[in-house]
């Protein structure tokens, strides 16, 4: 066993990793261009929104992870903090991409079918409420439910809100990273206290706004429908998905000879979090489902009615099988959380599982059903997923390579983390 580590070790983003990330980005770009060229504009936009949202959520999760660790004054995680911090550094890129997708989707129009099956000129995204005339009485597009919500759900206010959420997450995330970097050269408690304070502020801002962020970005795709559970359900998806990506990144770095101070004990803790919050995700999923199913009020049941279409139903059930059954069977025992290969496979499963989760939140409202269930996920979905995976790799690993050391080497609780043992 190696007993000493060089804390000045830096990550070098080069070779295979860099080539692969660029290849994946090119695949994604081909997918996007192909999607538009072959006339799948709406579906391409829905996929872009899906991956833009997923990418942003994973990056926000990096900031959230750091903030939780600082506020809890957790010692075990001190030596792994640089990886979620790199996610936080990539957040501005993710946020700009998400905002660009949303604003292009709102402003580019095409001829398509509206909510009531009529042919009209529609924006690519959020056609339910951003359609022109939808709030004007007497207009053929008029919808009284949307009109009643329009004081909240109108394009300018929507745009302001989204920018505010993402800018505040990005700035607070940036500050957490900055104080941690300052700590490397200065040491002492000065920067740790600052990190603590900014983490508290972040958690308050995040706690109040993350459900609204999910309401705006995803729930408003089906604007007649609403669920107060939806925000927390999305938060759980963000947290589990993000934790899986963090764990996967750490395992990959370890395999490539970096961060050797991260042991099975740290991975065991991450596995516990993934397992626990997968059950939390299921709890919220089920809480939303049970009440809707039981009450069976048409305006609430509309969401599940859409997902009960023969093209979606199997994907809908597969979602809960992967994201609940998977971790329950794979990650419950202590040994499997400590077996790196098993944990890695579980992470890949959950990363794909939460892609499916977001997919089934977005697609039925954004594009409607395709011809068959097996047409629902095709080359377009795969290409855009791979493109964003490449983009994520590129931005996060670039951010990681800019850190002067892969460990916050003067973090006051670092010794505890290096001797972490459970």
């Amino acid at each position: 066993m190696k007993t000493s580590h060089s804390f000045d070790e830096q990550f070098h983003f080069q070779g295979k990793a860099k080539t692969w990330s660029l290849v994946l980005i090119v695949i994604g770009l081909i997918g996007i261009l192909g999607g538009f060229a072959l006339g799948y504009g709406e579906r391409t936009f829905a996929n872009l929104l899906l991956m833009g949202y997923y990418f942003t959520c994973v990056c926000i999760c990096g900031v959230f992870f750091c903030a939780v660790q600082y506020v809890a004054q957790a010692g075990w995680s001190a030596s792994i903090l640089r990886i979620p911090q790199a996610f936080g550094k990539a957040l501005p890129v993710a946020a700009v991409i998400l905002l660009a997708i949303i604003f292009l989707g709102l402003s580019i129009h095409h001829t398509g079918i509206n909510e009531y099956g009529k042919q009209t000129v529609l924006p690519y995204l959020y056609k339910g409420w951003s359609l022109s005339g939808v709030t004007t009485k007497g207009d053929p597009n008029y919808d009284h439910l949307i009109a009643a919500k329009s004081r909240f759900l109108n394009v300018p206010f929507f745009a302001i809100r989204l920018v505010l959420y993402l800018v505040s997450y990005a700035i607070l995330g940036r500050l957490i990273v900055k104080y941690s970097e300052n700590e490397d050269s200065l040491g002492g408690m000065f920067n740790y206290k600052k990190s603590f304070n900014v983490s508290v502020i972040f958690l308050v801002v995040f706690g109040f706004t993350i459900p609204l962020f999910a309401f705006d970005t995803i729930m408003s795709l089906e604007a007649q429908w609403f669920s107060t559970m939806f925000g927390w359900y999305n938060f759980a998806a963000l947290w589990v998905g993000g934790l899986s990506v963090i764990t996967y990144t750490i395992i990959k770095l370890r395999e490539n000879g970096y961060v050797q101070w991260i042991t099975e004990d740290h991975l065991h803790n991450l596995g516990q979090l993934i397992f626990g919050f997968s059950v939390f995700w299921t709890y919220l999923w089920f809480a939303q489902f049970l009440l809707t199913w039981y009450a069976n009020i048409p305006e609430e049941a509309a969401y599940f009615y859409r997902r009960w279409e023969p093209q979606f139903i199997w994907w809908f059930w597969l979602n809960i099988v992967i994201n609940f059954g998977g971790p329950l069977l794979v990650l419950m025992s202590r040994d499997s959380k400590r077996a790196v290969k098993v944990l890695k496979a579980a992470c890949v499963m959950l990363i794909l599982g939460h892609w499916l989760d977001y997919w089934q939140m977005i697609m039925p409202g954004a594009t409607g059903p395709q011809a068959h269930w097996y047409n629902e996920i095709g080359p377009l979905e795969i290409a855009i997923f791979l493109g964003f995976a490449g983009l994520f790799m590129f931005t996060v690993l670039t951010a990681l390579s800019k850190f002067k050391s892969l460990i916050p080497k003067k973090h006051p609780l670092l010794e505890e983390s290096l001797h972490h043992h459970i």
Partner: protein
Amino acid sequence: MSKTKYILGLFEDPDEMMHGIDLLQKNSVPIYDVFTPMPIHGIERKLGIKDSRLGYAAFMFGCLGGTTIFSMAYYMLVHDWPMNIGGKPAFAIPDFIPITFEWTVLFTAFGMTLTFFFATHLFPGRTPRVMDLRATDDRFVIAIDAKGSTPHEDITKILKDAGAVEVKHNDRKYVSYE
């Protein structure tokens, strides 16, 4: 033949006690058990204690709870007295899930507590097994079975060398029994 059944080394400091364990193990003196007022990190591995099987008990109790209530709910709501609640079918599985979950948790929690009490002789009505009363207060106690082949004076010396503040030669295993 000495009447001593167990030799206890009482330590004031957990680190000295860990050192005592090292010394005893180096001299091939088998340790019967160690009693401490608080959990000591890494002591299970040092003493070679096997992983607890409480988790398996928990799983079994959970399965028992889940099946019990699911069968009960099925018997009551589907078989014995089906009712029309909100137009839902009598065998409405989503409705059964919350109570199944609750009973699984309840049986697991109670079952684990009972198993733990049973295994550690803390069950109400049973006399607790205590080898030295101060092990629950401020002493870290290593217990050694006096039947071993090492002479008792040697064991006493090893314990004293490691920093034991007191070494007891007890004629009885448990001081808590009358």
